[in-house]
Each structure stands twice: as structure tokens, then as C-alpha cells.
């Protein structure tokens, strides 16, 4: 029994007790992998006063939830979280451990991998089980998205990966699902808190997380002046989405860096990406080409953005965008549920 590694553990990222979407997406994927491996999906829910959320993790597809609940886990800090996750892994001996490739997951998972020590594959966009060997195939972009690499773990178990947000699909919530909740004591002491969190400031840094947005209206150099961002805002509001920008606009100070899409900004994968006046430098494309549906509006019919666009419009965005906003408004008014 001691040497048997089985099941899939998914780190359930939460902030302020709110489970992050990425964790549910990975649970959804893990569910698929578990069907192939004929094993269980176990959420690792780590935080403070967090146990009540375990049922949510089960409703989204976990078979069991391991809970580590401790005051020291109230805010994310590397060492207490690392210790908690390592304890969960030592206790449950999973074959696979998955984390969101977020600012927390990408801090935590490498630290865990170093402590075990075992391999870790970053920022995966695809996970599969290899026929025959049952090995986890982890596929990720490299070289700024120019190349994809499929990686396998050759180190000790578990096979570990961080998974990009917005790529996997969460299951539909099903409150009739039942599962066991296991409480684990990670033996944390005050000494584990080796940093002092003086202040936590929410929202101010990033009012909008564009990587979570379902619809993005994105502006590039072609919008001309800064004031034209407001017409993108109006379109985004009408579509129920957010505004993002290319690097050119972030560098010019038209918008904050947090709204920048691309290799040095955020990777986004909304259902709809409307690129307005964005020529489509490869670094930009690397950050948005996985969007489900891409509409590009650009004056230059040779712009590379048209190579990735599902629908390209050659024209003046400053004329088209306001008309489109009006058309959507009209359509919505006509089709409103009365």
C-alpha cells in the first residue's frame, strides 16, 4: 500500500474564502482524466474557516475533499501553504497533483516540487493520459507561444503541473453529488509564517481581471487617440464584457498594464475577442489567439491579426464600433424578454 500512488489531487485556490474559477476548471479536467485512470479526484482545500466550501468542490466534480484549515492560512503566504500541500500529498500519495497557473499556483507549486523533490510542468494548456503507460501528458506553449511541447514526468510521484486559467472547462454544478471530506492537520506553527503580511489591498491594483473575462473589446495603436477608448468601453458594456489593450497602448499610458494582453501582459481566452486597431504582433497573438471567436477590425488589410481572426473587417473602427454598439442596443431592445 505504501508505494501505491493513485488518484488526482487538485489544489483548490481560494482568496478570501472564495473558490477561484481556475480550480473548478481543473477539477472538471481531472474528472475526465480520472475516468480514464479509474481513480478519484480529490480537492485540496486550504485556508482559514474554509471547511464549509468543501461541498462546493464536490458539487463541481470532486469525489473527496482534503481540508487544511488554519488561522495561518488566512492570507496566502508561501511557506504555510507549501507545508499544507506537502502534507496533503504525503498523506494521500496521489499519482497526479494539479494547480492553477496563477500568481499563487506558480509560487506554491515550484516550492512543493522542490521540497518533494519532483518535476513540475508549468502553464499547461492540455492534459491527457497516454494509452498503455497511463502517464500524464502535459502540453504547454514555449518560446512565446511559437512552439508547443508535450512533457512527461520522469521523477518521483506525483506527476505535477500548473494549468492555465480559462483553458479547461468546469463541469456544471450538481448539488446532488456526495463525497467524503477529510480533515488534515499540517502541523503548522507560528514559525512557519516566515514573512509578515503588513497589508492586503484588493482591487486597487487590478480592478478587472481580463484573463477571467468572457468578452473582451481590445484596443491597439489604430484607435488613434486615448479618447477613443471610450467607444470601446461602450461596446464592451453593451456586450457585457471588459476592455483590454495592446502593449502599444499600455506603454503609451492609455491604460494600466493590468489590462494589457500579450506575452508581457495577460493571456486571455474569452468567448469573444474584438480586436480594434490591433495589427497583431506575435507577442500580442500569443496572448489572445486561443480566444474562442476573434473579430478583428483594422484599416490595414495586411495586418497579421487577420491571420488569426475568425471574422475580419477591413475598415475604420472609429466609424464601425459606434454603429455596432447601436446595432446591438437595438437588437437587445427588440429581443428583450417582456
Amino acid at each position, binding site marked *: 500500500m505504501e508505494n501505491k500512488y493513485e488518484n488526482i489531487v487538485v489544489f483548490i485556490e481560494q482568496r478570501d474564502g472564495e473558490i477561484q474559477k481556475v480550480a473548478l476548471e481543473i477539477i472538471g479536467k481531472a474528472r475526465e482524466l480520472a475516468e480514464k485512470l479509474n481513480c478519484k479526484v480529490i480537492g485540496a482545500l486550504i485556508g482559514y474557516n474554509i471547511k464549509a466550501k468543501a461541498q462546493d468542490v464536490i458539487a463541481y466534480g470532486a469525489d473527496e475533499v482534503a481540508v487544511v484549515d488554519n488561522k495561518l492560512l488566512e492570507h496566502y503566504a508561501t511557506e504555510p501553504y507549501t507545508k499544507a500541500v506537502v502534507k496533503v500529498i504525503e498523506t494521500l500519495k496521489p499519482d497526479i497533483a494539479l494547480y492553477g497557473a496563477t500568481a499563487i499556483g506558480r509560487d506554491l507549486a515550484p516550492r512543493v516540487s522542490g521540497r518533494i523533490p519532483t518535476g513540475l510542468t508549468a502553464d499547461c494548456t492540455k492534459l491527457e493520459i497516454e494509452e498503455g503507460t497511463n502517464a500524464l501528458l502535459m502540453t504547454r506553449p514555449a518560446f512565446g507561444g511559437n512552439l*508547443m511541447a508535450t*512533457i512527461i514526468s520522469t521523477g518521483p510521484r506525483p506527476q505535477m503541473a500548473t494549468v492555465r486559467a480559462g483553458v479547461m472547462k468546469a463541469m456544471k454544478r450538481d448539488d446532488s453529488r456526495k463525497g467524503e471530506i477529510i480533515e488534515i492537520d499540517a502541523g503548522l506553527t507560528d514559525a512557519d509564517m516566515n*514573512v509578515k503580511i503588513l497589508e492586503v489591498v*484588493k482591487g486597487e491594483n487590478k480592478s478587472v481581471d481580463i484573463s477571467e473575462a468572457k468578452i473582451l473589446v481590445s484596443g491597439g495603436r489604430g484607435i488613434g487617440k486615448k479618447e477613443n477608448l471610450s467607444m470601446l468601453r461602450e461596446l464592451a458594456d453593451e*456586450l457585457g464584457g471588459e476592455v483590454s489593450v495592446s502593449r502599444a497602448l499600455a506603454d503609451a499610458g492609455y491604460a494600466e498594464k493590468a489590462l494589457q494582453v500579450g506575452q508581457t501582459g495577460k493571456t486571455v481566452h474569452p468567448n469573444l475577442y474584438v480586436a480594434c486597431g490591433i495589427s497583431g504582433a506575435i507577442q500580442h497573438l500569443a496572448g489572445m489567439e486561443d480566444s474562442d471567436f*476573434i473579430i478583428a477590425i483594422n484599416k490595414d488589410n495586411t495586418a497579421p491579426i487577420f491571420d488569426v481572426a475568425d471574422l475580419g*473587417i477591413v*475598415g475604420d473602427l472609429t466609424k464601425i464600433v459606434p454603429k455596432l454598439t447601436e446595432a446591438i442596443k437595438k*437588437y437587445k431592445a427588440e429581443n428583450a424578454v417582456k
Partner: protein
Amino acid sequence: MKIIVCMKQVPDTTEVRIDPVTNTLIRDGVPSIINPDDKAGLEAALTIKEQVGGTVTVVSMGPPQADVALREALAMGADEAYLITDRKFGGADTIATSYTISSAIKMLDYDLIIAGRQAIDGDTAQVGPQIAESLGLPQVSYVERIEKIEEDKITVRRQFEDRYQIVEVKLPCLITTLSELNEPRYMSVAGIFGAYREKEVKKVTFEEMKEYVSEERLGLKGSCTKVKQSFPKQAKGKGTVHEVSEDEAVEIIMAKLIEKNLI
């Protein structure tokens, strides 16, 4: 304050293209640069040195050509440079890389280690935290601002998707920096002369390290992951492009939005 900066020389991925015929990466003629997040880390180190005094030592693992990147760091103002280089170190994944670098760092003296958050060729963000783990140091990653540096501690602003934390951490520790932390300085002319005439890049090979490392944890052999296959990203099927009047354009877009259930 003794500061070590971990740096990587990377191909400028913004210049990397795919050969449309062979479907492979074209790396010829692609310039090598200091990884942007690391360069911000170096700038931060130089700024701290200006504020409180001390030394800045840059450490890089890579092929002999990485010498150029370390000379650039020296020309920017770093005091010492070490190139960890040996065929035995080649083919390393992040676990083997961090083991090798941390073993070399153990031979040096430090109060603070700064690494860039991630390299633009691999984008893993793993080596910094793994070095910290190897050395048993506290870490703060995703540092977007350095608030305060004191004799025995540093206070930084740590970025998350929806918030930031102001974190105080005792030295010695490791932080990883974001490129938006600062605007790295240029090399000075005197700095460039100095980097090639007065300063040297010290090579650290297996020979120098062999008493401190287990050979089976180095390079390809010491890696815990393996690339099974790599392939160029599949281009998405080409969509349609329309050069029509504005009203027609709006009609075409509306039809698609309705069809795709997006409004």
C-alpha cells in the same frame, strides 16, 4: 548588503519565427538578450546598492556564450559575475537547474537573492522558488515594487491578479521580480570598458563544484521531466475577411454574434 542576482540569457522570443516550410523554429540570427524580468532584478539590486552600499554579484547558468549577458550586467554596474557552465549541466529541467544554481550560490556569501519571475523562452517561473527551497530561504515572488530595504529585512509589494500584498521578510531571502518593477539603466561607456578590461566573468564548472553536488542530480540525468515531443503551434483555420461598407460590416458582425449566441 551582499546581493546575488540570478540571470538567464534568452533568445529574444519576439524575434523568433516559424519556418513555414519545415515548421520548425528559426533561431538563426535571433539576438540573445538578458531576460527582461531578470534585468529588472539587476536594476533593483543596483538601486539597493546605491542606497545602502554593498555588492552586486550576478550568476547565470548557460552555455559559454552567456558570457556576453554577464558582461552586460557588469557594464551596468554589477561587481562580480559567475557563469555556471559545463556539459554536465546541459539538458536540465527546472529541478536540475535550480539544484545546480543553488549549489553554486552556496559557495557565495549573500543577504538577498533576486531572480526574475520567469524567462521568456521557458515561461515557467519555477527556478526562482526552487532555488529558494533548495537554500531553505523564505521567498516572495511577483515583486512589483520594493518599498523599503533595511539592514535585516526587506519590504516589497507582491502582485496577485486581483490585489497586492505588502510583505515584510527577513534577510536572507529570495525575491522574484517583474519587468514592470523598473526601467533598467543602460550600460555606460566606462562600464563597457570596465566589463571587458578590469572585471572578469568567473567560470564555475563541474570541477569547482564536484565536492558540493551529487552528479546524478545535474543536467539531463537529474531532471524530473522530459520533453516527449515538440511541435509548432497549429495555426487556426483562416477566417473570412471582408472589405465592405461600414453598414455592411456591422450587419456581418451582428449576424455572427447572433449565430454564436454572443448577444
